[in-house]
């Protein structure tokens, strides 16, 4: 310590002396900073890796599907202003037969040019090679699918292509920027075992699907600065005669939208959650510093008497806060890096981005430090200024005794029925309302944070319940390659094991209300549909009305319409009718932004005979295997998804993430509670050590003295927990609103068990922290108390 100013030496000794409390505050600061570093760091990792991937492998800007367009149409697309590159393709869903996999699996087959690599959405090839131009059965498969099914180049896989069972040979394993998040038909989470992407030479696909000289999918890039909306309109005009289903740009591209949605959630997390930590740490620093200054009154008087200025004293105490916080910030960086690595690894399983590796986000470090130090300075300023303002003569006197007085509270707090220790506890609570409020706030903040984060697991349960049980009573969903006559449904119902079948029709559409416009898929359901139903926000089933359209609340919000309003629907199918439809009901769906109509009304609008694009089936559980075997051999079926497999995959995929995230939240929420309780108990022990030692001398046991010391905190915790639950539900609403995207929104569901778990986490961590302090009751100096005056 040579060369260090005496005040700085004092500072270091103060911190050493209060190291328990300093560590408690430091941990809370560290948690806040860590979450910021983790969220922003992961965000920048995702964003940078994705952007590099997109650029290097030429992710397209605009995408469109058609039923069948001649290659000549591509030339007209190239003529559109701003369009740079056009690549036509064939993209089809096929059903797979995989050894040792019972459930029907699907692949999306995407064509690659015969003689070259793709121009857009290029493949990053990890193993093997490209298919030979002349070989009709060679494919590249996506990496995740290969890993999940333990497939390697050289292996074979069976696929039903246009009704014919073909044996395909895997020659390569790769990925493309188009399928960072690869979703099979009718699923919300990737199921790498049951859904994969296959790439095949164009000529082979043309032959398999009777698309000689034609394409059914196109992607294009536009010059920088081009308005994609204008391009989309022109693409739609060109493709309309060929059964175009509406072009869309990156924000509507499913894989990209999911990555965006995840990044949006990380951003929300980085904005909301660290704030809770930093406010709590500021409050704690304030209380610690206030107490330290009380203890050091006489020293402060002395230092001022020596001629130190107010600003020197203010700065001295600010440094105390800054030093503690800096320790927390550095620990937060380290913890944040660890968490970021953990989360990035989790993401790497879901988001197939090559080079998705841990990287330091300098902005997160700067933002974390500034936020933490800023809140520390705010928290400590009033206490530090208070110290500087003490007049030397006054400060050198001992602090006046705590003045308890009978007040208006006396009638309330007569508390004759209570014993003295309890009465003492209650008086202390009311005697220091600001401190009680600060402790209450700290406990409530811990609970708020826990409820506000752990609720998402209840929300996921609720989503599963809604998606797979309340609204869907079917066991299997079948998708056809293209719209077919309703008789296809009765054919399905004759497959062994099918107990009931209901047709469904999805048509792409652009819905317009005023200047607002959204591209969606309208689902046509039978008026009396039983296997797929929709629910109003109060949980009642809504039947399909014979006229008008039913919108999900999410979509109604995006279009700013409500029941009774009229919207214009541009249906992007066949005759492309434009119709005005009244909004007849608003319903509640967690996933996507769906719209529904009566299927008969829809077919009438399209001027078509009864037509379906898929069907929902109810299966006989005893004969499910029979069904699975025979369905994949039916012609015209693009995909089959089984509800049971979807649920299993959903839960399996989420399980690991849930446990890891729950663990992280539980630890950091517990850290807040422990920090608050430890700090409050230490301050109380310092202030009342003499009083408590006197009680020990008078014959009170350690436990009785511990009761007086901690009873106050126990009461604060018991009040703080329900308050925190209310705050947590409010935070849940805030987070759910902030995180809602067009892909899905999180329902605000908080189960009583979550409140129970939260209370338990807070009580256990508080108790552990309190026990650390109670240990010190045993070492109270009973002898010193007889001799010394406070």
């Amino acid at each position, binding site marked *: 310590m040579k060369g260090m100013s005496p005040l700085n030496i004092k500072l270091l000794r103060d911190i050493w002396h209060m190291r328990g409390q300093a560590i408690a505050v430091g941990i809370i600061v560290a948690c806040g900073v860590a979450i910021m570093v983790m969220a922003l760091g992961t965000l920048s990792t995702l964003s940078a890796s994705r952007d590099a991937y997109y650029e290097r492998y030429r992710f397209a800007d605009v995408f469109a599907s058609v039923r069948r367009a001649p290659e000549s149409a591509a030339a007209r697309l190239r003529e559109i202003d701003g369009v740079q590159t056009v690549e036509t393709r064939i993209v089809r869903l096929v059903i797979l037969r995989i050894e040792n996999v019972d459930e029907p699996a699907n692949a999306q087959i995407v064509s690659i040019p015969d003689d070259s690599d793709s121009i857009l959405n290029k493949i990053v090839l990890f193993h093997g090679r490209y298919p030979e131009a002349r070989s009709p059965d060679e494919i590249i498969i996506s990496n995740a699918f290969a890993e999940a099914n333990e497939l390697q180049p050289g292996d074979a896989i069976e696929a039903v292509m246009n009704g014919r069972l073909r044996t395909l040979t895997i020659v390569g394993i790769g990925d493309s920027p188009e399928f960072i998040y690869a979703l099979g038909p009718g699923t919300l989470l990737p199921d790498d075992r049951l859904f994969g992407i296959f790439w095949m030479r164009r000529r082979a696909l043309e032959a398999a699907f009777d698309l000689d000289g034609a394409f059914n999918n196109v992607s294009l890039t536009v010059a920088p600065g081009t308005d994609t909306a204008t391009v989309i309109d022109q693409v739609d005009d060109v493709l309309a005669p060929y059964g175009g289903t509406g072009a869309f740009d990156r924000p509507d591209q499913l894989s990209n939208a999911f990555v965006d949605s995840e990044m949006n959630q990380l951003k929300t997390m980085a904005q909301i959650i660290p704030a809770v930590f930093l406010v709590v740490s500021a409050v704690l620093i304030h209380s610690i510093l206030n107490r330290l200054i009380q203890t050091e009154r006489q020293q402060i008087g002395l230092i001022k008497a020596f001629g130190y200025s107010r600003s020197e004293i203010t700065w001295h105490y600010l440094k105390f806060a800054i030093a503690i916080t800096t320790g927390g910030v550095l620990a937060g960086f380290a913890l944040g890096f660890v968490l970021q690595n953990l989360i990035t690894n989790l993401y790497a399983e879901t988001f197939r981005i090559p080079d998705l590796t841990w990287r330091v986000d300098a902005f997160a470090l700067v933002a974390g430090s500034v936020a933490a130090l800023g809140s520390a300075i705010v928290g400590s300023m009033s206490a530090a200024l208070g110290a500087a303002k003490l007049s030397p003569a006054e400060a050198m006197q001992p602090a006046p*005794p*705590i*003045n*308890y*007085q*009978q007040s208006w509270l006396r009638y309330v707090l007569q508390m004759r029925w209570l*014993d*003295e*220790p309890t*009465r*003492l506890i209650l*008086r*202390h609570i009311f*005697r220091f309302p600001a401190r009680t409020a600060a402790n209450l706030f700290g406990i409530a903040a811990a609970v708020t944070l826990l409820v506000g984060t752990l609720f998402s697991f209840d929300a996921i349960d609720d989503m599963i319940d809604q998606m797979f049980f309340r609204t869907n009573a079917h066991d299997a969903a079948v998708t056809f390659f293209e719209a077919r006559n309703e008789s296809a449904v009765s054919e399905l119902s004759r497959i062994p094991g099918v107990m009931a079948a209901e047709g469904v029709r999805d048509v792409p559409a652009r819905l317009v209300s005023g200047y607002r416009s959204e591209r969606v898929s309208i689902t046509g359901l039978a008026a009396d549909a039983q296997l797929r139903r929709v629910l109003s926000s109060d949980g009642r089933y809504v039947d399909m009305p014979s006229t008008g359209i039913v919108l999900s609340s999410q979509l109604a919000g995006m279009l700013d319409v409500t029941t009774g309003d009229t919207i214009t629907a541009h249906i992007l199918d066949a005759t492309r009718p434009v119709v005005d439809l009244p909004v007849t009901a608003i319903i509640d769906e967690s996933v996507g932004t769906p719209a529904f109509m009566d299927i008969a009304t829809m077919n009438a609008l399209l001027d078509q005979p009864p037509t379906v694009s898929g069907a929902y089936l109810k299966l006989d559980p005893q004969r499910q295997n029979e069904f699975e075997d025979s369905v994949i051999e039916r012609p015209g079926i693009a995909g089959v998804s089984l509800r049971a497999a979807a649920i299993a995959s959903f839960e399996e995929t989420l399980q690991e993430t849930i446990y890891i995230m729950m663990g992280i939240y539980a630890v950091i929420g517990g850290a807040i509670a422990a920090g608050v309780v430890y700090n409050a108990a230490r301050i109380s022990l310092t202030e009342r050590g*003499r*009083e408590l030692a*006197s*009680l*020990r*001398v*008078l*014959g*009170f*046991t*350690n436990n*009785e003295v511990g009761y007086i010391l901690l009873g106050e905190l126990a009461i604060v915790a018991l009040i703080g927990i329900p308050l925190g639950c209310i705050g947590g539900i409010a935070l849940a609403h805030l987070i759910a609103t902030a995180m809602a995207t067009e892909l899905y929104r999180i329902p605000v569901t908080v189960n009583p068990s979550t409140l129970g778990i939260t209370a338990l986490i807070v009580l256990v961590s508080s108790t552990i922290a309190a026990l650390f302090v109670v240990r010190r009751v045993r070492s109270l100096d*009973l*002898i010193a*108390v*007889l*001799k*010394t*005056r*406070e």
Partner: protein
Amino acid sequence: MTSSSSHQQTSADPEILLEGKGLERTFLTGEVAVRALRGVDISLTRGELVVLLGHSGSGKSTLLNILGGLDRATAGTLRFEDKDLSHATDAELTRYRRRSVGFVFQFYNLVAGLTARENVALVTEIANHPMQPDEALELVGLGDRVKHFPAQLSGGEQQRVAVARAIAKRPQILFCDEPTGALDSQTGIRVLEALDRVNRELSTTMLIITHNVGIGEIADRVLRMQDGEIIEETRPNRRLKPSEISW
């Protein structure tokens, strides 16, 4: 007013309540061993009022701490009634303090958050056969101040609350460490009157430690300590009333 009760006890065969033999206490401060007590023999009989005089550093507080169960002797024996306290555990010492011993401190050590009555009740609640808090406060002349908080009482009044608190559980021994040390003489005398009254009316054995020689005149017996030893024991011919003494 006579001092009959104390004379009776000194003239009859006095029952020994607390007895220490060969008490030693050595503190290790760094490399240096300080012998605060060097083999003290002391016995207190039931109902007597003993004043222990000595200068700072003479060892009187160390002795009181050991007798009061706050500290343990390095060597020697301590008996209370028929119990050996020489090797008592913490819990046993706590029980001893709780059931049998009262303390009055130099700086009162009242609990700021409790009224006078409640400060007394704090102790009566954990006692076996306590008196009513109001009765104890009446005994020290504070019957009209029961609802006041410490901050609303004078130093002398606070000390009398402390006395009431100490005696309310009817302890067999009351240890007072410089009970008037923080008070002026007028106020100090009122506190001594309270102690004197308790000793006479409740026959509570008392050990008062002080460096104030004058206080010795209210005692049955005066012990003088120096350098960790009791060097003198005197029995005043007549026990004076606190109002008769001066310092």
